[in-house]
């Protein structure tokens, strides 16, 4: 008798969300099965990887990833265009880290001007990220949302402390929105509820349960993402059916393993290969856990993850 593999089916489905507009718009989500389980149901869209660029030169990034963008990273638009034209970026994540009070402390208007210039220059979807300073982000993201009105960009991140203003800004300007909580499945659900109770359409939301890096808490993020996906699919919980976003690069490129020179750690091998592998493995793990949108930094690790996606989809 031939072996028939068991098949799971689920009552829930992840929201299908389109980001950006025009021919380069991208759709994520829409699946009614666990990640890459295309043999059990519908997986209409591939996960998407956004290249991270910043509004200030990446002085705090390690050399391995900084050198890739040498010559273009002095200006966010030039940087983004390089990612799109030379590296094949399908999405850009613009991190306005220069607005942080401890960095350049750019004003909301300055940040909005950067967003405006970026949107005028690129034709792929844009993810607009604050500096993750809860208070500053709420003023910065209001101005940025106005600058991005009608572009179907993604705005983030709304946290419990500042979600009211940021949700209102995303709603008024018809943007997608990232809701970020701090590695707690229940608080993640709660924030999504609070946001939808303000009248924000849950089908325009993305959940960021907070990323981590391999060997620095990856398993916490992994199990939170996995639990979100199971609640969304098996329990048909609409509050957890928005696609999941994993902000990978910023977590990976600050850990010891992506920075320690070979001279100090000869047993760890090539620093460059190690950093790229660290980012790729972290990202691939989150894809398996359920992330649909990744933000990454190194083109080599992005290519490795794209290859992984292509092989998993077969």
């Amino acid at each position, binding site marked *: 008798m031939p072996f028939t593999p068991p098949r799971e089916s689920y009552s829930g489905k992840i929201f299908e969300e389109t980001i950006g507009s025009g021919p380069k718009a991208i759709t994520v989500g829409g699946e009614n099965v666990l990640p890459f389980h295309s043999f059990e149901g519908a997986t209409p869209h591939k996960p998407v990887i956004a290249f991270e660029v910043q509004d200030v030169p990446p002085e705090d990034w390690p050399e391995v990833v900084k050198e890739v963008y040498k010559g273009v990273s002095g200006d966010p638009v030039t940087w983004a265009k390089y990612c799109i034209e030379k590296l094949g970026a399908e999405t850009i994540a613009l991190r306005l880290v220069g607005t942080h009070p401890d960095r350049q402390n750019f004003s909301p208007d300055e940040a909005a001007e950067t967003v405006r210039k970026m949107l005028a220059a690129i034709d792929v979807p844009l993810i607009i990220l604050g500096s993750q300073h809860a208070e500053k982000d709420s003023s910065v993201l209001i101005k940025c949302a106005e600058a991005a009105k009608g572009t179907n960009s993604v705005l983030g991140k709304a946290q419990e402390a500042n979600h009211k203003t940021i949700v209102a800004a995303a709603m008024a300007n018809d943007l997608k929105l990232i809701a970020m909580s701090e590695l707690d499945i*229940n*608080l993640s*659900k*709660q924030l999504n*509820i609070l946001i939808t109770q303000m009248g924000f359409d849950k089908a325009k939301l993305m959940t960021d349960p907070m990323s981590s890096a391999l060997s620095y808490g990856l398993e916490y993020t992994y199990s939170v993402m996995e*639990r979100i996906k199971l609640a969304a699919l098996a*329990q048909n919980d609409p*509050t957890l059916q928005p696609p999941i976003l994993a902000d990978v690069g910023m977590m990976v490129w600050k850990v010891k393993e992506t920075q320690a020179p070979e001279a100090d750690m000869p047993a760890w091998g090539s620093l460059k290969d190690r950093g790229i592998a660290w980012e790729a493995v972290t990202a691939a793990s989150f894809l398996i856990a359920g992330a649909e949108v990744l933000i990454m930094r190194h083109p080599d690790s992005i290519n490795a993850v794209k290859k992984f996606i292509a092989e998993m989809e077969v």
Partner: protein
Amino acid sequence: MLIIGEKLSIIAKRVREAMFARDKAPIQEIAKRQYNEGSRMIDANIGPAEDGGEELMQWMVTTIQEAVAAPVCLDTTNQKAIEAGLKVHNGQWGKPMINSTSNDPERFGILELGAKYDALVIGLTVGKGGLPADAEERCAIAAEIMARAMEYGVPLEDLYLDPLVLQIATSQDHAAHVIKAIKMFQELNDPAMKTVVGLSNISNGAPKALRPIINKYYALLLLNAGLTAAIADAHEIAEVAKTYDVIMGKTLYAHSYLEM
């Protein structure tokens, strides 16, 4: 748990007056409120309705379904009124339910209607011989009703066994018998038989302040025994069902879980 909103009963003065005056507004307002509070089926109890029952049930079904996107539980002893209601029931939100058949041959016609109109049927575990004494007797009657349902062509997954909740103030022993019966009913078939109760009957005759307390704790015990559905006031019971789901891990906890 499926909550079948119980508030549209002819016993309530405001509802009765609206029924007789064919005044849609109060009926629809109550139906909407029950739906918003968590009922996913609305009970339309028109009593024995010996005169004009057919027309009244049709008016109730259409009036309710104009206001809420939910199926209706047709609750009357008048079988002609049931059939009239089934004819106009809009099935797009789910099958209608009939309340009820029993082991009394006079009620077998209900099974015929259930089969004919593809409706869910409540099987009240009483026979001609009066009230069942305990859980075991309820089970024996349930088995008879199940056999009858199959004979008439009502699939067992469409049959909801009702152990008959009695007033705790006058029939205290039966409160525990009913919980036991809910557990035993499920064993009568694989997949498990579905079950339903008329919940608030437990607190009938008790002082008004006690009624919600008794109803809620009783609902929790019945849920834990595996109850599928309850004809109940969603305003009172939704929090019990939601909290039960959270405690049992059927829904993921969040601080606002009651508001979902």
